[in-house]
């Protein structure tokens, strides 16, 4: 019998070594595997390279991992947020390296790693400083730059439900990087609210088939999602948006 479930988050993150490259799913708080990150903090691995869209919000989750100085380098698209004070401090102090990647190139590079693509030509970033040092090529009259896959040793991903084969489904926009990150890591570890029996998931709707998943752990409901107002978000000038209430104003 295949059983990829593990009893707790500590068992889920066992074996993550110092110096590992770790992908962490999530866009802001949605889809961020906070329980796995907390377990990784307790586990002690350091000198990590983290791949995430952001660089942490507030003081929990990825921000807490950064605060413990476990991260040497971060690959992301949008580190600066209204509540990214942990990253901001480390960056200004020169205590963390940053590789900034446009969000779509980040996603496509992760997907390329999972799909065995050696490199690809993308139009995103052409003519900008983020294309510096890239190979350029004009194809069919349009200019592109060459981008390479991003592989990881581990992926920490937050899903909604999984079965013991590691099939994972997500909720709404929390899907974000989960399906591609699980495909791009040697060992993929997924936390879910709930483990369901094999056969309970609709086979037509499995964004992450179990072939990409090595360990799944149920963490129950995620209380931190309701901690306070729904923080995160900046306007174009970088001013924090007062979230749950601020969002109201846009109705």
């Amino acid at each position: 019998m295949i059983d990829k479930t593990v009893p707790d988050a500590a068992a889920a993150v066992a074996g993550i070594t110092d110096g590992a490259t770790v992908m962490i799913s999530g866009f802001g708080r949605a889809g961020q595997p906070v329980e796995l990150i907390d377990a990784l903090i307790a586990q002690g691995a350091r000198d990590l390279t983290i791949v995430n869209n952001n660089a942490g919000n507030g003081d929990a989750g990825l921000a807490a991992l950064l605060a413990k100085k476990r991260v040497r380098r971060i690959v992301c698209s949008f580190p600066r947020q209204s509540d990214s004070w942990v990253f901001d401090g480390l960056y200004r102090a020169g205590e963390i390296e940053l590789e900034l990647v446009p969000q779509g190139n980040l996603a496509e590079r992760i997907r390329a790693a999972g799909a065995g693509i050696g490199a690809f030509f993308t139009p995103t970033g052409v003519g900008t400083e983020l294309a510096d040092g890239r190979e350029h090529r004009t194809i069919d009259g349009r200019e592109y730059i060459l981008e390479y896959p991003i592989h990881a040793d581990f992926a920490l991903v937050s899903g909604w439900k999984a079965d013991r084969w590691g099939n994972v489904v997500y909720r709404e926009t929390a899907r974000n990087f989960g399906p591609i990150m699980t495909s791009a890591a040697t060992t993929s570890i997924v936390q879910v609210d709930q483990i369901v029996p094999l056969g309970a998931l609709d086979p037509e709707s499995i964004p992450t088939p179990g072939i990409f998943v090595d360990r799944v752990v149920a963490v129950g409901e995620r209380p931190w999602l309701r901690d306070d107002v729904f923080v995160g978000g900046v306007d174009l000038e970088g001013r924090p948006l007062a979230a749950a209430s601020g969002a109201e104003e846009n109705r």
Partner: protein
Amino acid sequence: MTTRIPRAELAARIAADIPEGSYVNLGIGAPTLVANFLPADQEIILHTENGLLGMGPAPAADQVDPDLINAGKQAVTAVAGAAYFHHADSFGMMRGGHLDVCVLGAFQVSERGDLANWSTGEPGAIPAVGGAMDLAIGAKAVYVMTDLLTKTGESKLVAACSYPLTGVGCVTRVYTDHAVFDVTPEGFAVREAFGDNTVASLAELTGLALAGADPTATDAASAASPEED
């Protein structure tokens, strides 16, 4: 002091230019205001690059779902007919040219349609780009929504951007508080001047040679009809 229309009015002006059936991405910040002015009796489908087509308005305060957010990380809803997808698929949609319109903020837009909206290039500033570069090159029509002048009175329409670029030659039209400008092969053309603004007064404010818009010019958003994806 020349006429400046309020942001909400500008948002309404942009909304009025988006045809029914369009697939639209509204950038974070001011462009999100455009959603408030899309006509309720028309179907315009909003894309948010974090993985949703068919984004609806903000939820009631007691209905906030932390798994359902927009690119600005604000709580949103999904409408009937919505679809969720992962990030590679979402940015494939953008990069593949399937969006009809995106509306973005800007620090600067150049005469040839270059956009600078992600970094002021200040030393010590923490860079963050997000999906800005993907959006800039990813929609059939790229509309910029911005004040014409900075707080210190400098024109955001420029001959060449001094800020780091987001995309090259990608902007279709610029909606400002003073006027609407089309990007044409000959530079900016005034499409509509608000209140007492004139081509001449706008040329003075921007320091640029400006053409009056050709009223026969095709509307870019209409040209980017949903029939073509």
